[in-house]
């Protein structure tokens, strides 16, 4: 899902750099007000885990592979703004140290994986919890949010590359294949997100109180 340099037009690169930087400024501003000291080890641990998890290339369909996005896990445990900072750290290291994702396309990659891949899962989970704060809502919202976050981030990447090539065939094939393939990895992303969420709820529910509203009233079956 990491778009390398050369795949997007310069205009698109600039636009996404600006959009992502704006999100990042707001993310630091919000995190400054919401991140608690006891959440810092969780933030550091999950960021390292997500980076490492992205090194695992999971076989999907027809010989292709995909990796976990990790944004949904970060967002549903730390909130979307803090997780955007975490995703930025991961993507900076990947782009500058490993050449995994471009420098010019960094803004687009950050927007896809750091913004779409975190805000969508968080919004969906919050929606479920606001409707009914229960363990089932947590599982359903966590799974659906992660699934859609992964899928929409992949679709966004396909649209950006497709529009840059100005080839309608590329756009069509890219959208179709990315939707199919990332539906598979989306299911794995959803399961992983729910497992992490339930684990944290079981061992350290206090860490989620500032992130997820009404989480105190969720009976997580301890």
């Amino acid at each position, binding site marked *: *899902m990491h*778009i*390398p*340099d*050369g*795949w997007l037009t310069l205009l698109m690169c600039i636009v996404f750099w600006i959009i992502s930087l704006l999100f990042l400024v707001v993310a*630091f501003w919000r*995190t*400054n007000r919401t*991140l*608690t*000291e006891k959440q*810092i*080890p*969780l*933030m*550091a*641990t999950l*960021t*390292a*885990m997500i*980076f*490492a*998890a992205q*090194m*695992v*290339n*999971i*076989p999907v369909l027809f*010989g*292709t*592979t*995909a*990796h976990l996005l990790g944004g949904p896990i970060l967002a549903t445990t730390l909130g979307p703004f*803090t997780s955007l*900072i975490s995703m930025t*750290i991961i993507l900076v*290291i990947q*782009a*500058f*140290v*490993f*050449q*995994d994702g*471009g*420098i*010019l396309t960094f803004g687009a990659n950050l927007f896809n994986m750091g913004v779409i891949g975190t805000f969508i899962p968080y919004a969906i989970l919050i929606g479920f919890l606001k409707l009914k704060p229960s363990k089932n809502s947590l599982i359903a919202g966590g799974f659906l949010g992660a699934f859609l976050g992964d899928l929409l981030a*992949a679709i966004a*990447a*396909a649209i950006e*590359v497709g529009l840059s*090539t100005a*080839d309608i*065939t*590329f756009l069509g*094939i*890219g959208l179709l*294949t*990315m939707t199919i393939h990332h539906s598979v990895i989306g299911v794995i992303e959803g399961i992983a997100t729910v497992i992490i969420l339930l684990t944290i709820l079981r061992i*350290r529910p206090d860490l989620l109180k500032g992130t997820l509203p009404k989480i105190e009233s969720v009976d997580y079956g301890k």
Partner: protein
Amino acid sequence: MLIGGFLIAILFVVIGVFVLGFANETLDIIAGLFGTHESETWTSPFPDYGIPGLEDNPIASLALGIGITGLILVLTFLIGWLVTRRKQKTS
């Protein structure tokens, strides 16, 4: 939590290096089919998660993966600490 999380992260690195390291992503395949070429604007020190000259040495890749994972753990901790520290000063 930090140690437990780091151990799980190392497990992912081990799996990534020894079991599921081969990447063949959908978007790359389609881009290749349509003749979209990657351009190099930056020469990274460890392209494709390998140490130059030791690309085929999994132990070197493992050490690199663990080292960078540790670096990310420390870096994120520092950034989180700086963000909360600044909040305490301004409030």
